[in-house]
């Protein structure tokens, strides 16, 4: 069993660095607080700004397992918490029929841990060591599920009628992410620390590209970061995420493009923009975006 390292600001900073996750001091502070206070952390922000990644980084930092629960409309307790393994229970009953066992004995058996299918939430609670529980896109789940989540987040315990109450041996580190498809209830936000994760500024994005695509020419890196930054300011249906900016940088490297010009952009822009409308809209702006990207870049 791994021992959980002691939580210090340096640990968080080190973990972020090791995971090549570049960010602002604000994020570091909030992550440190979430770990030190053992409070769930609610992260909101646009898609592709690195919300989910934070869960992974935290798991890496604490050297522990990441338990992930992806939310969707219609997610219910059976999928999130536990379910009885019906088939296995039946087999057990059949097997017991051979020897004459009392019903009370059998029923004790079939409602024990062995016949329980653990879903992510229960898994995180019963794990023998501290884990990171990532509840992704919690806004996609229904209100009912959110209410049910509250019970778990406040006490970290689950009551299973046939088994009794299961209490967490170690409080998991909980990270919730949301895109705000709907309002989250106040009861939930009140229990969490809150972090709004926006796209990084040009400088940080440039550094991210430097870390992840190291052999890209420096001037080109600057241009890519600025161009993507400019794109995000346009009124697009889907703004480019950080991952898409990285894809683009890799593609430019693979195509051996030395400098960003209108032709190169047109050729590769579909890596960054995935909607036909967006492409059309950006096409008219390529000139001005390029000018803005190059002005201070060289």
């Amino acid at each position, binding site marked *: 069993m791994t021992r959980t390292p002691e939580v210090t600001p340096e640990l968080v900073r080190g973990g972020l660095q090791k995971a090549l996750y570049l960010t602002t001091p*604000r994020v570091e502070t909030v992550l440190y607080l*979430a770990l030190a206070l053992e409070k769930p952390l609610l992260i909101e*922000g*646009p898609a592709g700004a690195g919300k989910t990644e934070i869960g992974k980084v935290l798991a890496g930092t604490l050297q522990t397992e990441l338990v992930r629960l992806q939310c969707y409309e219609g997610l219910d307790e059976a999928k999130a918490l536990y379910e009885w393994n019906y088939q296995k229970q*039946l087999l057990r009953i059949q097997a017991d029929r051979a020897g004459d066992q009392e019903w009370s004995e059998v029923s004790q058996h079939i409602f024990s841990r062995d016949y329980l299918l653990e879903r992510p939430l229960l898994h995180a609670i019963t794990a023998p060591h501290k884990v990171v529980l990532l509840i992704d896109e919690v806004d996609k789940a229904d209100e009912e599920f959110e209410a049910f989540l509250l019970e778990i987040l406040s006490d970290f315990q689950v009551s299973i009628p046939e088994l009794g109450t299961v209490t967490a041996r170690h409080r998991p580190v909980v990270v919730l992410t949301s895109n705000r498809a709907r309002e989250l209830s106040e009861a939930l936000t009140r229990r969490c620390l*809150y972090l*709004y994760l926006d796209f990084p*500024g040009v400088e940080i994005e440039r550094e991210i590209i430097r870390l992840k695509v190291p052999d890209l020419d420096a001037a080109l890196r600057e241009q890519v970061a600025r161009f993507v930054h400019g794109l995000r300011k346009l009124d697009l249906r889907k703004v480019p995420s950080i991952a898409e900016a990285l894809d683009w940088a890799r593609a430019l490297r693979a195509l051996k493009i030395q400098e960003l010009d209108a032709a190169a952009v047109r050729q590769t822009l579909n890596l960054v923009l995935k909607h036909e409308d967006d492409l059309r809209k950006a096409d008219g702006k390529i000139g001005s975006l390029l000018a803005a990207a190059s002005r201070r870049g060289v």
Partner: protein
Amino acid sequence: MKTRLLTFISMLRDAGLSPTVAETLDAVHAVRLLGVERRALRDGLAAALLKDEADRPAFDAAFDRCFPLIGRQRGKGERREPSGDEGSGAAGRSGAQMRSTLPQEHPDPTGPNRRSALQDRAPTLHPTQSKHNRLLVGRRRLRAILFAQMSPQDIEDCDELVADLARRFRAHLRRRQRQAWRGRLDVRRTIRWSISKGGVPIQPAFRGRRPGAPDLVALCDCSHSVATATRFFVSLLHPAHTFFRRVRLFAFVDQPIEMSVEDGTLVPHGQLDLYARSDFGRVLVTFRERYESLLNRNTILLIMGDARNNRRPPRADLLARFRAAVRQLVWLNPEPIERWNTGDSVMSTYRRACDELLRAATIQELHAALRRCLTRI
């Protein structure tokens, strides 16, 4: 520090945020852990107390006033991180704002600052907020704004939001239907299947419910005052029509006229006099004469209207008669609750004849009301 923190929290309350006691405790813990280095303090307090990025401007204003920069520090560097290039302009502005309130070390929360703090409160849009955030604040506002106060621009903006909600509503109905089907064990088939497994019912069979989809009849007030509400009512309802056996929509002002939805717009099948004065009593009479055959034990009757009857006979007896005939009669009122029964509104008269009366003065309420009355079927 403790008193300073409490002052800060009361300032946040004045600015319209509502930190709870538990959150205050979190803030205290955060300060203990992080110390008082200004940036860390700001971020730590924000994590504990600020639960909606839309409130960030109000939070920052309160923070700057309560924990002002001292002497040389002021004005150089150490601003909040720019969340975009336009950040610098806004920072300058709020810096000026901050200086103007600096002389007071502990501003009296009941003093003149209070008003300006209230004015700072969202949903006003702040230039430093990113596009996503603007969308988020905008949607939050649209969900909560009264139909009566919507500008034409708001109504246009709402269409996307309503389409989104309609999709969710549909998905909700579908799921409810599926859940209703699941979990009903078909004993006969389970046993038949089990024979091939030596009598072990290893694979349970579930009964597929015969879809007993109800009929839906909706009467929608189209008079000028509630036309917006009706429009969104129909746009939410229509995508869900496949979950009902039959859907009949009627528009009325003083006469019920059947209408249908074609390419997302409402098309009445007859002359609808939009400038007539609403007459619910007459609508009910005509409805009984022409369409009473639509009402049976399998019908859900929805009425969308403000019950403003221009002092004409309400004929609630007919409504009671309809209620006896249908499975459920639900009235949705698009006026805010404090306006019910004022002036010529006869809501309380009709209320007695309805199974349920629901508020639908905003998009959020409308959506909740529809979910409430249509998912128990």
